[in-house]
């Protein structure tokens, strides 16, 4: 049995220990803040990043890993004996990381003709993408083939429901990742968009509300509409809002039969574009997932 080696970029926002325990190799995105270059999640941790964001005026920027960076990572795995690699990446609508990975794949496959690298556009981001990787990595440990893993990743993406609130549209707009949410920009009223990610891998508004209270209520209404009940995998993601994330998780637990739960940090790379204060919840109805 050949175990498939799993790669993901750091926008998957998978907690470090979890990634290590599942043998997921993380390729970091580069984050430039206050004139310093950082590797997302390696030299810059979420708490430190949001703290910096509060203190400094400077606007952070991100850049995709170069094809060389990705190729180096693949080579290392191949030298360690892996021959099958599945590399999952942030939505190609949001970043060029997928492109870098495709170039790296062709370079490395030429060098190692017996290695097979499959690069997949997750069409998602943050832990909505991360959860795909986690499910895939578990299945990989069970010896599933690349084809099965790709199908599983797709299934996890399709069945999950993500709702997120950004505190301000400023960061999404500034970073050019605003997509279909752009129509909500410019209002003088305090509008809280409730956002998600669509099938094309773009950020889009599910709805909008006046003020945070209403936005949170509406976000949970949407969850309830999409997943009326049953056993779920629940993840709450947050950008420097641990307390709020705990509250959200309690709400989810009150509403669903939560079989597995996790609170994850939205890391510096995604946080650069979502902005501090973003909170989101994703649920996977486990019964639907098993009916595959």
């Amino acid at each position: 049995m050949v175990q498939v080696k799993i790669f993901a970029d750091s926008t998957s926002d998978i907690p470090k220990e979890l990634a290590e325990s599942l043998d997921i190799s993380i390729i970091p995105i580069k984050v430039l803040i206050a004139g310093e270059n950082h590797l997302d999640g390696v030299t810059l941790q979420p708490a430190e990043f949001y703290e910096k964001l509060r203190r400094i005026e400077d606007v952070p920027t991100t850049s995709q890993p170069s094809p060389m960076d990705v190729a180096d990572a693949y080579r290392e795995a191949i030298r360690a004996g892996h021959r099958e690699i599945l590399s999952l990446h942030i939505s190609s609508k949001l970043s060029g990381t997928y492109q870098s990975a495709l170039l790296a794949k062709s370079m490395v496959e030429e060098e190692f003709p017996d290695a097979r690298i499959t690069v997949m556009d997750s069409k998602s981001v943050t832990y909505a993408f991360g959860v795909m990787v986690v499910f895939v990595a578990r299945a990989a440990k069970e010896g599933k083939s690349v084809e099965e893993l790709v199908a599983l990743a797709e299934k996890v993406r399709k069945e999950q429901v993500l709702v997120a609130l950004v505190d301000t549209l400023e960061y999404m707009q500034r970073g050019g990742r605003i997509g279909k949410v752009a129509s909500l920009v410019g209002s003088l009223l305090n509008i809280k968009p409730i956002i998600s990610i669509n099938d094309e891998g773009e950020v889009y508004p599910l709805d909008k509300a006046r003020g945070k209270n209403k936005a949170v209520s509406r976000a949970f209404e949407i969850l309830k509409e999409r997943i009326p009940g049953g056993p779920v995998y629940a993840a709450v993601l947050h950008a420097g809002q641990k307390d709020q994330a705990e509250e959200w998780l309690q709400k989810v637990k009150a509403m669903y039969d939560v079989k597995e739960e996790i609170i994850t940090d939205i890391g510096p790379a995604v946080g650069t574009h979502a902005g501090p204060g973003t909170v989101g919840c994703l649920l996977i109805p486990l019964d639907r997932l098993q009916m595959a």
Partner: protein
Amino acid sequence: LAQQRILAADFLRMMRAGAKKLTQNVPAVNALNVFPVPDGDTGTNMNLTLTSGVGEMEKQVSVETVGKLAEALSRGLLMGARGNSGVILSQLFRGFARAVADKESITTRQLADAFRRGVETAYKAVIKPVEGTILTVAREAAEAGYNRAMTTEDPAQVMEAVLEEARRTLARTPEMLPVLKQTGVVDAGGQGLVFIYEGMLSALRGEEELLPVSELPDLERLADVAHENAQAKLDPSQIEHGYCTEFIINLKTVRRPTEKFDEALFRKEMERFGDSLLVVADDELVKVHIHAEYPGDALNHAMRYGDLTRIKIDNMREQYDRVTSGHGAKVEPAGQEEAPVKEKKRYGIVAVAAGEGVADIFRSLGADVVIGGGQTMNPSTRDLVQAMEQVHAEHIFILPNNKNIVLAAEQAGQVMNVPVTVVPTRSVPQGLSALFRFDAEAGPEENRQAMLEACAQVKTGEVTYAVRDTVLNGLEIKAGDFLGIAEGKIRVTGKEKNRTAEELLDHLVQGGTDMVTILYGQDVTEAEAKELVQSLESKYPEIEWEVHAGGQPLYYYLFAVE
């Protein structure tokens, strides 16, 4: 011997006298407003409406028939209609005009019948007719007139019967509408109608003083004359100012600051741009015709006073060439006279709001045109039509944001040649909530429903002051007191602005209240508003408070409670 028929000249005198009588009594009608809030404008609205109607009659150069005059009156009323009573007045005379459309002169019977037709039309126009208002007064009066017409050939006697019954019915309006009785007043709109009838009767009796005839010359006619003169010397080498330029300045532009308009000064200024200058102005609009060599300069200059509409620019040299080369015997517009055609938007949104801050918020939520007005100055049907005409859209949504503008908006909607949806928003908070729910991707009916729902989910609070002493809902109110109005009902009075505001919010805030948006008016300082919010935040920590400078007149605070 009593005159048997009403001739065109008589009808004009009647309506002039009616308008004059109403004008003289505007304050008396305004004073009948039920609420002691500074929006007692029924008299103002009716007067502006009727003035517009009579103005249209005056424009008829040769008075020929009653039918044509009545039609002009009806047209002028329709476009000038402001406020609910103004709209109803316009409908009363619309029905009247239809009844006499083909009449050169009218008999007592025809007069009486026309009054009845007016009442029918007005009742149809109002979705939920309320008894004890101008409608009842008009109906009872018309019936009395009709009965009297059976037994007399003297129009003055019919008019007398109409007036007497109108007065009697007016006196009974407090019996029909509890709110009138409680306040101890008769219906304001009904009173306005009685004044109009009084004027009309005095004219029939030959007792009215002659009104000074206001001459508002018709621009189109004058422009024609100017063009005839121009054609006489239609040699291109002689055309000094090559572009015939016509446009209208909207003096009521609120989206940006404009300069104060002075007609005499404006003429002087415009003269330097060309010749054949014609300027026709009223309080709202200035129609301008000029032959200019650089029309852009003329337009830029005019922009100082307001936004421009109906811009039409013809190249007169080109027209001359066409005439002389025999491609057409007539001078025709040069084809590019209209502004470049933009792609029509699917939806256009027009909102009515007073206060630059409030207008900005509406615009930030997607309103294309925000038309000034609200509490004290209700825009006329014409204002609303013009606002809608500025929007280049396939379907227009209009948010009146005041219960007294809803009817005028509906009337304006009927004049437009694109579909118009009136969302009957009764307050600025309702309007904001409705517009917030608007979805450019959704269908018109879906949007209408969503917007109506949104209206129902917001509660409106207003803080203003009392314009007179009264007792209402058991509250003793003194002129100058601050009033807290919740959902249209006076709930709180006080001597201190912010205290009144807080007590009002105690009435509006409930368990499910998530957020309150506060728009503070032009007579509230930022510091006062902040002070209020700080106090409210500590009192209601679980509620989100959002504050904006609304800049609205008369209303110190507007609250949207959701």
